[in-house]
């Protein structure tokens, strides 16, 4: 794989909404992607530096994302996390992004942009 895409490029190209506090996204690289709505699967399969795509928007995703040190969580289908979840993400340095696209679509677009599994 070529040089990994950085978050800035991904956010721009896919028109993602940033839900957490802004920061220098160009300094963060996405080394791969992992899609699952099951926390146990994500724990088992997602690696540090990956983008994690999920429809889940509840509090538990923040803890899992922080633990795995994923590059960012992309919440699909405009699922809306509540303020407590966003606050907790900011506290723990987890980036939450959002898109109206469903999992299948966003996976496809990322794949075609060159974000493959590492």
């Amino acid at each position: 794989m070529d040089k990994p895409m950085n978050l800035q490029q991904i956010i721009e190209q896919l028109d993602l909404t940033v839900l957490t506090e802004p920061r220098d996204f160009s300094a963060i690289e996405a080394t791969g992607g992992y899609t699952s709505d099951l926390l146990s699967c994500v724990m088992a399969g997602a690696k540090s530096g990956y983008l994690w795509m999920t429809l889940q928007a509840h509090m538990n995703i923040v803890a899992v994302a922080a633990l795995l040190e994923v590059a960012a969580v992309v919440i699909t289908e405009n699922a809306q996390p509540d303020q407590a979840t966003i606050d907790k993400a900011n506290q723990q340095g987890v980036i939450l992004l959002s898109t109206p696209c469903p999992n299948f679509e966003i996976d496809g677009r990322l794949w075609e942009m060159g974000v493959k599994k590492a």
Partner: protein
Amino acid sequence: MNLKEIIEIVDGTLLNPQVDTNIEIRGGIGADLMSDVLAASQPDAILMTGLTNPQVVRTAQMADIRAIVFVRGKQPQEQTLAIATQENIPLITSPCGMFEGCGRLHETGLPSFESNVPSD
């Protein structure tokens, strides 16, 4: 896209060869939340999922999903296989993760069949 093509694209293995696999798949869905599939899918899609319980098959049946791909080489529970065979729904296991499987299928032109805007 014919199901047989899809099986090849995701390096899949058909788990219930008794069922009819000569079917047209019109779109793709990647999800582990069955309510999401029930809420937002369009008929005649293929579902990629990490879930292997019988609910996946029942969900597929209710939402008129034509085939199910289990990601990361997962094998379905025995009962899942039994229900799927009875309901004539092909079950496929693929070594791909959901991200890669959806990526590969999308790349060959299979559209997303999930919409956050209700279709009906």
